[in-house]
């Protein structure tokens, strides 16, 4: 049952050292504020899951909070590689990170299976692809009707999923719009779900009946954090800060510059700082 609370409390109550956690968002609605709060609280030893780990996972890895990464595309979208992740994987700095790597199709199906309460997902995938050789969590199943071999992966069931959404209503129902990505599945697949939102409204009574809405009883905590997806964006609220993604490529290239940036922009910052960061990116509503 969704409870409204400040973000620090929501993270403290729902993310524990050693957890398997997903901070999901497919380019859009990335829960940056929640990830930064986790960094401030120094919750470590995490297994992080995400289809498209980008800047925030680069930051968590660089801060030494990550034991293992489950992913399908690890890049700074449109810019290049993730330099902190590379440093961890290639050089073990600040600590080695174990990698479980999939394709997007596999992870999308695995989240879907998690939301659907199944132990595994089957799909037509990985044919001729070498990931099946290096990832023991890629197996196969034979269709009992046609004999076709299909790829199988275990369902994803995070201990906790964090997502950012546009709106919650007063009861704690949550609305996600635009590029909805994998958020619904990631939220439903998790044991606990925390949502940061741009806005809290009275109700969704005028919303179209077929929108992506998570009922309040599927969510554990909701925190109001305007701008909380920056530098990603919130459809209808503010645009993507492409410049910040380009900047990250430079910041993350150097260990000391990275640490100074984190000190200033994360460790010594707070959830309410996000509102300022998107001020110039706000779109006409």
């Amino acid at each position, binding site marked *: 049952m969704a409870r409204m609370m400040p973000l620090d409390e929501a993270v403290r109550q729902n993310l524990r050292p050693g957890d398997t956690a997903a901070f999901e968002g*497919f*380019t*859009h609605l990335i829960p940056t504020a929640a990830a930064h709060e986790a960094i401030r609280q120094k919750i470590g030893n995490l297994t992080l899951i995400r*289809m*498209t780990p980008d800047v925030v996972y680069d930051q968590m890895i660089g801060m030494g909070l990550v034991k293992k990464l489950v*992913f*399908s*595309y*690890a*890049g*700074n*979208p*449109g*810019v*290049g*590689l993730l330099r902190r*992740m*590379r440093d961890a*994987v*290639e050089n073990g700095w600040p600590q080695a990170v174990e990698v479980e*790597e999939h*394709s*997007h*199709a596999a992870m*999308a*199906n695995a*989240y*879907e299976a998690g939301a659907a309460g199944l132990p595994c997902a089957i*799909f*037509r*995938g*990985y*044919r*001729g*692809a*070498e*990931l099946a050789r*290096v990832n023991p969590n890629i197996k196969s199943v034979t269709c009992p009707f046609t004999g*076709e071999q299909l790829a199988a992966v275990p369902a994803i069931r995070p201990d906790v999923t964090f997502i950012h959404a546009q709106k919650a209503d007063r009861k704690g129902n949550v609305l996600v719009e*635009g*590029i*909805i*990505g*994998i958020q*619904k*599945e990631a939220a439903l697949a998790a044991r606990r779900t925390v949502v940061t939102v741009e806005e809290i409204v009275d109700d969704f009574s005028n919303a179209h009946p077929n929108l992506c809405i998570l009922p309040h009883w599927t969510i554990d905590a909701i925190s109001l954090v305007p701008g909380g997806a920056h530098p990603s*964006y919130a*459809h209808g609220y503010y645009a*993507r*800060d*492409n*410049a*910040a*993604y*380009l*900047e990250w490529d*430079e*910041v993350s290239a150097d260990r000391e510059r990275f640490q100074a940036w984190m000190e200033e922009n994360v460790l010594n910052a707070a959830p309410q700082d996000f509102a300022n960061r998107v001020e*110039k*990116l706000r779109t006409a509503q």
Partner: protein
Amino acid sequence: MTRQDFTPNEMMTIAASRALTSEDVCFVGIGAPSAACNVARLTHAPDITLIYESGTIGTAPDVLPLSIGDGELCETALTTVSVPEMFRYWLQGGRVSIGFLGAAQLDRFGNINTTVVGDYDKPKVRLPGGGGAPEIATSSGQVYITMAQSKRGMVEKIDFYTSFGHGDGGNHRQRLGIDTKGPTLLITDLAIWQPDPETKEFTVVSLHPGVTREQVQETCGWTVKFADRLEETPPPTPLELSTLRDLKARTERAHKGAEAPGARKGSKDG
């Protein structure tokens, strides 16, 4: 050879755009494929359906997205579906006619590596990984690849089979039960390549204006085969060139974004 009024990269994008038609349903990789697909849409293929893996179907962006999920893609799309639906109903469902991919490493049979340079467990360079590519490569009706030529990129043997092209060549796809055509076209900054009908080895069928066989060979890590009848790629038309340049200029302006502190100029195909 006269001085060209277009760059090799522009020629690559425009040559790639010409391979697309209004009837195509194209699963668009970010970077060079995205530029080619949108030039096609803005010139000779206005009704092409562009799909980005973030879930946007039938997009018509005014500027090129920096990421696979920019707001522009959703705002101009016919509809936006969830990512599981995208990979299940649209890609795996067999509805994509062209999967359009870039590559970090490519071999002569169209196999692609975007995972690691070096050994998987101890990589020299940890690349971003496959993303949608492993299934785009096998579920799309056919695959077009576009990349700038270099000996580091076009190699004798790729370090990791991120996505399967023609494997060891010949009927390797069929032997694995893959019933789609795989890579049928490679467009580089120097040439257009098609697989040999038998061996499936990429063969140069057309050189871009002013490009020599030697230039193609010097920037390719394997011994290049040339078709008996080698064409010359028609140069960009004024319309193609202005369309591409306008698109790039709009994109550059847009990606500077809100002039956040430390913002760099321009974007980079990633």
